[in-house]
């Protein structure tokens, strides 16, 4: 046992030694320690360097508010994690940890020079300095800042651990397992309410669990004994789920909360067994009781950041809970009674302690208790300086003037090895404000407390501004009874003995004989912002608290200003001469404590990242060496290389085969919407630009759908299956959106129409066979069918059967070739496909993918919505005037087609481009210019589709060009990085302009 471990407690098992490593040195702690308590038990205070000035810093607190003890753990493993607080890591065998933000080491840090040049790096330093000379930015400033910026090291390997999400509902959720949370949970669970209690520590009880003081008793027992009994009873309740090691991250509206449960973080690495590491709980609670407690405030004085300067209640916790004395020569610096509890604890263990109190005098019970134990108290005094580089060794104190605005008298130097500071308590109102709650300022205690307006959420205990034990118990009981409509509870007649605080005095920035400019009075320890910085910001004209915060970075570190926000506000109010309550506070945003990326994404990683949709023919594609491309969530065959064929070679071969003999495409992914109802024809008339009322049964028609703004939205072929029955196809990526849009119009604009829409995309598989031999292949598959042009003309459909299985055959074409699409129930898709391949063998039927499909349609100048259009193209821009009905009174987007902007002549319009060198293939997306001389060079359009056509033996491209319609034959330039490519504007149809092949 080390000399600092002075006390045996039941929370740390001193029979179980745990060895760990910090900054390359081995230490021992015990089961039940945190990394922080174990380090302190070894006398280690210095654990890090501050962010800006690289000043030595030590452990300051015992919880999530810790600003200094930020570590990297398990470095050089794939489980490494930066920015974890030593005060929150439960010690385990073999834990490896190291300081951050120091180089080469925490004891000797080169960056410490920043401390000496600190007068030259005030708030806003970066904004002011790195402006000039301009040329320095890229080569010198930016790399330097990037090297020195950032906290810790990110893991370089994929996270091997498992994370989980869980959705739960409950009647009552209680946040915080301290005394008020325990009372609330017991009342809720005992009244038949499904209750969840979450607590971020590994045990319940809060600070009451180590409160063994004569002055604080409940039903004649020490508070710690009383709470132990309560916890034991709580664990027996059926309705209650207790989640320890679970911290609330966010409190959203309508009582939706996120909490992160640490499941295996406290276990040695070799005992984690690949189980879930962390679980994110998504909780919807009917009622929420916030019992998050309060955080002790530091005091702001010169050099208040040395290692060994800690929060008083944390010092008490290390002593009474972990059995570790943070020093043997302690000084307590306080403005309130609570720090006297720390003094009493020290004295009872025979450890030296003195108190410096800024108050003039107090006669409360706890103060008298301390005096009786022989604690020396310096009243009406303040600390003006501290000494000791890597750990505090002495302080200098002076008396305060009557009004507290100055110091008077002589300096008095006191030696110490630990300075425990208490500036009062700040209620943790983060959760309340996250949920949308407002705050009131309570002048008496200089605190913001929740104002309750939401009927499904209350705050109890010290987060609600109740600090005295008696108030906490009685008010919590009363409030929870009222909230849950309970008439009586076991806490109704609890007898509470507690020392009441009688005197208060608060000074946000303590005065000094040293001039303000030379004091380093830290407010935000993690971001190194001082009282001086705040005042500078005010002098420079910043008024809003939100602006001061950003300019000085106060409260913007990973601790989110848990310790600093109130002081910043107080100093601003004092300096500006306004009331603190009128300033408002900065917004508290989730997460309350940082979340790991793993817990945010949960199981949605790797193959579960997104849904993968596969057609029923997918297996065949894999067996036949298809390369896939993602189209929305679908996996579509991109091309089918033979042996080591390149994409280009495969596409050239597939494209030629499709035009010379026969090709087959899996078209199952196209969206399919079944439309039925007596007004189906009228509905189509309204949603497509062309006329549908005269389409005969058994006929197909291509349609273009616009947005109300006149821009092309989607396209596809729709088939009339019956009098009141249509089958619409949409683009693969647009299917879901088209259905929503159509539903929107049906439900909201045209509820009088008798139309029903059903998505049948997944119900049918589609094999599309094209090429001059396609008719022969179809005839072999369906020997009873007459495929003559008279009996089965282009743009018509017929029902057919394969081995008694019904299917639909559409004679439609997206390639310009004679082409048939066979739709069959999905479960028969693969058999149909295999049959087509089998029968097609003698015609060398060639499966082709999306790349060949794109090339073939580009040869014919058919657009792809989303590739040749981008939400700014009207059908007129696409030179598709033919599809826009002039006769129809209205359709979606019609009125927009003659707005002043859409009839503009110099809009970008779809044209063809031919390169002067027929072997030169343009890059899709390349810019187009007409005049290279006039600067700045005007970009008049861009290439939308570009391929080398094996059927035309030249390069072809589609492009959108300003005023392109009138540019036929004109020479333009496509400037590339190394050269300018000369092109000529052409028609957008390159092959078979007479449409002969469709009836080949």
């Amino acid at each position, binding site marked *: 046992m080390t000399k600092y471990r002075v006390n045996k407690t039941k929370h740390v098992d001193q029979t179980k030694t745990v060895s760990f490593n910090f900054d390359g040195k081995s230490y021992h702690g015990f089961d039940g320690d945190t990394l922080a308590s174990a380090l302190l038990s070894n006398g280690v205070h210095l654990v890090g360097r501050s962010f800006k000035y690289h000043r030595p810093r030590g452990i300051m607190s015992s919880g999530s508010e810790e600003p200094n003890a930020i570590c990297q753990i398990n470095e050089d493993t794939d489980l490494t994690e930066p920015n974890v607080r030593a005060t929150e890591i439960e010690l385990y065998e073999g834990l490896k940890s190291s300081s951050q933000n120091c180089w080469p080491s925490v004891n000797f840090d080169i960056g410490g020079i920043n401390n000496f040049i600190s007068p030259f790096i005030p708030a806003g330093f970066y904004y002011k300095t790195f402006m000039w000379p301009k040329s320095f930015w890229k080569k010198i400033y930016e790399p330097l800042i990037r090297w020195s910026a950032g906290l810790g090291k990110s893991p370089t390997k994929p996270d091997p651990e498992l994370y989980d999400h869980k959705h739960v509902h409950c009647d009552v959720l209680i946040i915080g397992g301290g005394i008020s949370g325990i009372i609330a949970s017991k009342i809720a669970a005992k009244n038949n309410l499904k209750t969840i209690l979450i607590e971020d520590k590994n045990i319940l009880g809060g600070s009451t669990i180590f409160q063994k003081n004569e002055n604080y008793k409940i039903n004649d027992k020490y508070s710690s004994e009383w709470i132990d009994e309560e916890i034991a009873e709580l664990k027996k309740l059926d309705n209650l789920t207790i989640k320890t090691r679970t911290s609330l991250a966010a409190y959203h509206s309508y009582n939706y909360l996120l909490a992160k449960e640490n499941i295996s973080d406290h276990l040695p690495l070799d005992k984690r067994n690949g189980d879930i590491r962390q679980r994110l709980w998504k909780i919807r609670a009917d009622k929420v009781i916030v019992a998050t407690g309060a955080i002790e405030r530091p005091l702001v004085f010169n050099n208040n950041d040395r290692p060994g300067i800690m929060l008083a209640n944390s010092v008490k916790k290390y002593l009474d809970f972990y059995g570790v004395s943070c020093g043997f020569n302690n000084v307590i610096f306080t403005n309130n009674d609570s720090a006297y509890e720390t003094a009493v604890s020290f004295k009872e263990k025979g450890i030296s302690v003195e108190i410096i109190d800024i108050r003039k005098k107090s006669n409360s019970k706890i103060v008298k208790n301390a005096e009786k134990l022989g604690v020396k108290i310096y009243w009406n005094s303040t600390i003006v300086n501290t000494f000791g580089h890597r750990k505090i060794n002495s302080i200098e104190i002076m008396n305060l003037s009557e009004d507290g605005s100055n110091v008077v008298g002589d300096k008095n130097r006191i030696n110490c090895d630990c300075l425990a500071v208490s500036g009062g308590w700040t209620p943790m109102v983060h959760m309340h404000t996250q949920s949308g709650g407002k705050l009131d300022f309570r002048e008496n205690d200089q605190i913001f407390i929740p104002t309750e307006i939401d009927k499904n959420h209350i705050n109890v205990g010290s987060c609600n501004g109740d600090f005295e034990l008696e108030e906490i118990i009685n008010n919590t009981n009363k409030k929870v009874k009222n909230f849950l409509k309970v008439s009586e509870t076991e806490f109704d007649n609890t007898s509470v003995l507690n020392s009441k605080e009688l005197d208060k005095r608060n000074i946000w920035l303590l005065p000094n004989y040293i001039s303000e400019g030379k004091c380093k009075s830290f407010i935000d320890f993690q971001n190194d912002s001082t009282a001086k910085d705040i005042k500078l910001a005010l002098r420079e004209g910043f008024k809003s608290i939100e602006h001061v915060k950003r300019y000085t970075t106060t409260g913007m570190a990973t601790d989110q200003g848990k310790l600093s926000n109130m002081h910043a506000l107080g100093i601003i109010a004092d300096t500006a001469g306004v009331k603190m309550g009128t300033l408002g506070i900065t917004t508290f945003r989730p997460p309350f404590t940082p979340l790991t990326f793993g817990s945010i994404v949960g199981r949605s990683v790797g193959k579960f990242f997104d849904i993968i949709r596969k057609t029923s023919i997918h297996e065949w594609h894999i067996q036949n060496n298809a390369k896939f491309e993602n189209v929305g969530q679908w996996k579509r065959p991109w091309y089918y290389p033979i042996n080591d064929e390149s994409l280009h070679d495969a596409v050239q071969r597939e494209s030629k085969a499709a035009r010379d003999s026969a090709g087959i495409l899996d078209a199952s992914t196209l969206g399919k919407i079944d439309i039925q109802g007596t007004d189906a024809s009228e509905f189509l008339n309204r949603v497509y630009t062309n006329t549908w009322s005269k389409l005969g049964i058994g006929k197909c028609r291509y349609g273009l759908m616009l947005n109300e703004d006149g821009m092309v939205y989607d396209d596809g072929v729709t088939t009339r299956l019956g009098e009141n029955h249509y089958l619409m196809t949409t683009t693969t990526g647009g299917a879901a959106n088209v259905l929503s849009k159509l539903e*929107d119009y049906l439900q909201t*604009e045209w509820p009088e129409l008798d139309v029903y829409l059903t998505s049948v995309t997944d119900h049918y598989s589609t094999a599309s066979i094209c090429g001059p031999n396609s008719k022969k292949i179809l005839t072999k598959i369906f020997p009873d069918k007459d495929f003559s042009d008279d009996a089965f003309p282009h743009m018509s459909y017929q029902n057919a059967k394969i081995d008694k299985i019904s299917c639909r055959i559409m004679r439609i074409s997206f390639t310009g070739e004679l082409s048939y699409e066979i739709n069959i129930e999905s479960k028969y898709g693969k058999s149909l496909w295999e049959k087509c391949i089998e029968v097609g063998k003698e015609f060398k039927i060639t499966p082709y993918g999306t790349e060949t499909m794109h090339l073939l349609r580009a040869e014919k100048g058919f657009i792809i919505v989303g590739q040749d259009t981008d939400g700014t193209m009207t059908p007129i821009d696409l030179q598709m005037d033919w599809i826009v009905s002039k006769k129809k009174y209205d359709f979606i987007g019609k009125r*927009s087609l003659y707005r002043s902007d859409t009839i503009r002549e110099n809009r970008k319009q779809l044209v063809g481009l031919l390169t002067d060198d027929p072997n030169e293939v343009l890059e899709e997306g390349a810019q187009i210019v007409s005049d290279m001389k006039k600067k700045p060079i005007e970009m008049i359009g861009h290439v939308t589709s570009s391929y080398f056509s094996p059927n035309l033996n030249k390069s072809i491209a589609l492009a959108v060009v300003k005023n392109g319609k009138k540019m036929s034959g004109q020479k333009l330039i496509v400037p590339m990085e190394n050269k300018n490519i000369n092109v000529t504007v052409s028609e957008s149809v390159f092959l078979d302009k007479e449409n002969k092949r469709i009836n080949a």
Partner: protein
Amino acid sequence: MFLINCPYCGERDQSEFSCGGEAHIVRPKQPTELSDDQWAEYLFMRKNIKGVQFERWNHAHGCRKWFNMVRDTSNDKIHAVYKMGEKPPVE
């Protein structure tokens, strides 16, 4: 994350819904009779109120029905939900 009371399905999590913007903007019956300015008013102009706002919502991952909602954008309190075609509650 809101808890939305779908008029057809009851209370569901907000993640099941999508918002369709301002409610009660009726598509003109005779668009061709409108001037460019009038059409632009229908097409582009939307209010962005801090306070009580009427909105269209769709239970996209549920019954797929559209409905209207009265929401205070300053505190996300939902004051009412009602079906398409029903009159907005007077308050």
